[in-house]
């Protein structure tokens, strides 16, 4: 029954019994109902994709429809996040409640896979079973490389290939690339300035090893607040015997 939403529900029970070793008899009962959920969440999961921490300063919204018996909702967000419940009607939304889900400023970077737990409370103060909304995505720094990784596929050893990478701010904030280096002698990183004033780099990779191989370009970036961080762009290939 749990998890049904407004679905007609029918269950039949059949008892098989014998009294005093006599002929077996049966009795049947049926239960019919319509399951009305206490809460409906829209969207049922917050999938925000890959976003920078600056882009997630704007809260994500979950609209919550509650049935008439619900007087309040308790909300629990995963670590690094806050969820604030407000009345949706007060803000001209059709939903009964709104949940504003926001990342804390000191929240973690990386993949996010958590749940926001909404616990309805009826008008008599009784807590009902909670409903969960997924919170799924990845949070990156506000300067990213496009592409994030370079894949050359299967390449014969002895050859070289060029790919370009551009560093951008997803929220269009100014930043500075203080250095661009490579730890491998097979990979050369060169800035290209002939097209615009952006941060465009050529990564020239020489294929030297057999099988899965990787070399990385490392960029030191300074954002508009003066904070410095490293951005690593791996360049991968699968080396084959040369011609």
């Amino acid at each position, binding site marked *: 029954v749990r998890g049904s939403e407004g679905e007609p529900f029918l269950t039949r029970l059949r008892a098989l019994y014998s009294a005093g070793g006599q002929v077996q008899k049966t009795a049947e009962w049926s239960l019919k109902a319509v399951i009305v959920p206490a809460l409906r969440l829209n969207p049922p999961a917050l*999938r925000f994709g890959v976003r920078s921490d600056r882009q997630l300063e704007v809260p994500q919204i979950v609209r919550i429809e509650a049935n008439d018996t619900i007087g309040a909702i308790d909300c629990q967000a995963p670590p690094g996040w806050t969820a604030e419940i407000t009345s949706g009607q007060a803000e001209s939304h059709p939903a009964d409640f709104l949940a504003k889900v926001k990342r804390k400023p000191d929240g973690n970077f990386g993949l996010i896979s958590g749940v926001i737990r909404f616990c309805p409370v009826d008008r008599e103060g009784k807590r009902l079973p909670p409903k969960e909304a997924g919170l799924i995505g990845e949070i*990156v720094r506000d300067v990213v490389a*496009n592409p994030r990784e370079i*894949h050359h*596929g*299967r390449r014969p050893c002895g050859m070289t290939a060029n790919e370009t990478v551009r560093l*951008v701010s997803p929220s269009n904030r100014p930043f500075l690339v203080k250095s661009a280096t490579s730890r491998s002698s097979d990979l050369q990183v060169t800035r290209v300035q002939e097209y615009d004033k952006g941060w465009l780099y050529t990564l020239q990779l020489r294929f030297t090893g057999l099988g*899965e191989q990787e070399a990385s370009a490392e960029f030191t970036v300074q954002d508009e607040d003066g904070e410095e961080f490293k951005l690593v762009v791996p360049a991968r290939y699968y080396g084959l015997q040369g011609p």
Partner: protein
Amino acid sequence: MKFGNRAEPRQGAEKRAVMRVIKSPKYLSPRVVLAIPLAIAAGLVASPRGVGGPAPEAALAAIRARQESVKTLMVEYKQTEVVAKGAKSEGAAPLMKPTTIVPPEETTLESVDRLLIDGEKVRCEDNHPSWLMPQGILQEQKRVSVANGSGAKVFFPTGLGPGATPTGVIQREPRSLDVKAFTPAPLTTTFRGLDPMISAFPAADMKPSGVTLLIDGALCEEHVIDYSDVILSSWLDTTKDYVPRRLRLQRQGRLLEQADVTYRRHETCGWSPTSWVCNYYSGHATILRSTSVQVLDFRVNEPQPAEQFDIRFPPGTTVRDGRTLKTNELSPMGTCGKYLVPGRCYPGSYHSRAILGTGGTGG
């Protein structure tokens, strides 16, 4: 191991099948089923979000002009696919996981396939060998799919497994999923870029990300469709009438599929793809398969008989009807006979396979 099929003549994929086993075993490769439309169908992704404004008028105008100049298109192309050891078992969905490493060694598969487009009508003849999972059996398989605006069908002349009878599927929706696969995507995106029923990278839905890169020395603009979990990107060559030089599929920021395309100038339709390489990666960035495609025959605006865009299933074919969710067997007269599984939801392993394919390497 090399393992491959030849293209079929127009009306029947029944003839001229050649399966070659060549040299020592090397790689394996599954059929290429594009994950995006399937992921969307499976409800795995949300509706698209635009990144920037609409696609620039210049790009849309070039794509529109190319589409309008190509009324009909017939392309025969050769696929050579190298599949890494264990790639198929690694990419298999949980229910399809084999108990052994599939393939046990690097395997090369070859086939010659054909794509036919006439306006909005399509016919795909796919002769690429495929893997029967979870058994892990490499099998010759032929598959013809058509869509003509009013209906869509798929036909497996040799069935869906060893010793199987011919199988047909009448799809619930009048559109071909095969034409939106990744392997022919350079063709469909170049010549039907505005048709979302044919192109998996519909230009009208794509938004410029504002990022430009040099690809082989040509300045290319990135256009994307952002489904949150899944991002499709097409790098349009500003020096070649905005043809897609690179197509990419990423999930959760990880590159899963990438095609790099080379072009030549054609007198009728401008820049046309001549070859491309599709690479498929695991979520851990290891290469699973690599497909090199070479165009063998390319014909534009030749009349195409209408019957090529429909399939009359021959007698003895097991037909699964996605519209009625019933499975029938055609009698020797070619009419529907008894229900094999009356009323059961059995739209065909074709659908099952497509959806399962979203979790891994496809087909």
